[in-house]
């Protein structure tokens, strides 16, 4: 059986990639995908821990996260489409009107 620490390690790598993506990428859709990556990294850690401790609650959490992620996608894509319609670009740095 694969040791739990491997799963956790992969989860940490995925999470870091996602977080860095959110921080450095400018394309809104890529940023969005990176957020999904972070969520799934967390999911992986949850199911790994659930298997380790033979507890159901970790798996239940994963379902919750999936539902929330689906909702987030719906809202987030709607925002992205509206932003694109307004300024015809997906560069998040161009959305800086609130400054000053």
């Amino acid at each position, binding site marked *: 059986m694969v040791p739990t620490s491997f799963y956790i390690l992969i989860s940490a790598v995925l999470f870091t990639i996602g*977080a860095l993506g*959110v*921080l*450095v990428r400018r394309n809104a859709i890529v*940023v969005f995908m990176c957020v999904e990556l972070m969520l799934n990294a967390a999911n992986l850690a949850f199911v790994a821990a659930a298997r380790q401790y033979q507890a159901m609650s970790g798996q239940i959490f994963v379902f919750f996260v999936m539902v929330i992620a689906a909702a987030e996608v719906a809202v987030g894509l709607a925002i992205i489409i509206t932003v694109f319609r307004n300024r015809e670009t997906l560069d*998040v*740095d161009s*959305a*800086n*009107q*609130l*400054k*000053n």
Partner: protein
Amino acid sequence: MPFDIPLALIILFPLAGFAVCGLIGSRMTKPWPGIIASGAVLASFIVALIRVIDLASMPQNVRVISETAYTWISVGALRSDISFLFDPLSAVMILIITGIGFLIHLYSIGYMAEDHNDPEGKLYARYFCWLNLFIAFMSLLVLADNYLLMFVGWEGVGLCSYFLIGYWFKREDAMAACKKAFIVNRIGDFGFLLAMMLIFVVVGSLNYNDVFDAVRNTPQLFSVGILGTIGAATLIPLLLFVGAAGKSAQIPLFVWLPDAMAGPTPVSALIHAATMVTAGVYMVSRSSALFLNAPNIQILICVVGTLTALFAALAALAHTDIKKVLAYSTVSQLGFMFMAVGVGAYAIAIFHVFTHAFFKACLFLGSGSVIHSLHGEQDMDKMGGLAKKMQITNITFLAAGLALAGFFPFAGFFSKDEILAAVINAGSGAPILIACGVIGFIAALLTGIYTGRQYAQVFLGDARDEELYEHAHESGPTMTIPLIILGIGSLVVGFLGMPHFVFIPAWGHAFTNWLEPVFSSGGAAEAPNVILLLIGLLIGWGAWLGGVALGKNAVGVIMPESLRAVSLDAFYNITIVPAGFAIAAACRWIDETFIDGIVNLVGSFVGESSVALRATQTSYVRNYALAMAVGAVIVLAWFVVK
């Protein structure tokens, strides 16, 4: 009796009328707010009458009805109830307020129907709304059984007086007059407030019974020195008198009353002649136990009353505005009342309040009828000969004028003469009171002259202004009926308080007997002084005839205008008014420099620091996300390290 009508209804009826007229009155067509308001006061009058009959059926020495509605304030030692005291004194006052109040409401329906200052009638409902509120507060003032509740009524009538003087709020003079009335009254109210605080400190209660029991049983409480050697026994009545002088327009606080004539004439009749201005006399009479303890203050009151009576009578001679004459006359008559109060003749003072309410209300309403028919003209130099045009107004004005002049056998003769006799009698104790009495007779003489002159100038002789005369007409029945009732009253009510001659039947002293249980010193059963009576009688007749002769031949101003300077306005305008402005300017400077400075400092501090903090707002989403990530790492690290 199985069921008593609650006294609170006397207050609640006009209060309900106030609410109805105030909330939906503006949607009613013209006479209706007036009818509702008059009905409310009539209902109060009926309740008052029923309760007075209850009171009269009780034995003389226990004639007190007290009713408690609920506890109003209970904080520490201070406890004040909404509770009412109905004794012969408040009974007299409440009958004056609701009875004459009703007649004046009725009169107002006709008087306010055409208003050249408000042709569209938008203010009509508002007028009756304030008038009803006034009746409610005035009833509260006289029915209260403690000083605090009385003060609520006291302030309330001042407020209504302010609203009604400034009723025609587009007129500059009305606005100035209502502000003046309010501010001058505040000075008096301040005295009243201080007196209440002192009473509470000394007695620990503001209830009449507690206070007066304390005066009678434990006078040593009152010997506490408040200002050096001046004890509470002196200071409390002095401060109460300051309050009374403000409300009842005595020297030096009388200046607001003549200006208050800027309000509608029925308001002058109700508030500034019959009821509110006598509140001071009522308050001093109610507190008679406190005043009898301070003989110096009593003499002071008598002297102030005498001077007021004299100077106001002089000023009344000098004016040609029909309402101004009556206003100064009211000030003068209030002076007479305070003379009586000052010598402890409370029952007689209230008797004069009673007769004065009839004849002065009648005079004001009569002058209102004249002004109404002359389309707002108030200058007596333009009147004359109106007797032919306005029979009812003429006769009632004559009756009331004779009563004011102290013309035997009209009402004013009995009350005024009793006052002067009481003052002269009291002179055996303090010689200064003899001087007061003599000055009082001079003031009474002047009263007869200015009243006779006013009557003659308005109603007798030839018309001075043909055009005005042509248009003059008698007023409608809602105005003449109250005039007739008050005119008859001016003739007959004096017989309720005749001097104590052997041949006069018992009902001839009904008034003073009725009030006797209330006052520790009634001064009621004094032996009449025949010489004084005769002097009074001759003065009344002679002065009236002299005045009529003066008025008939009057062309232009009869009296030197310099007499008008008796008004203290000029003096105040160079002393207190500039001082007030200086204080206000200083306050403004402090406000603008310090208060505003602190506020602006706080504001600019927040502004400056936010400019510095704004640098962190880059508007790049990734910066915010980085801040969040770093924050999350720090929090996690803290947990791990711990």
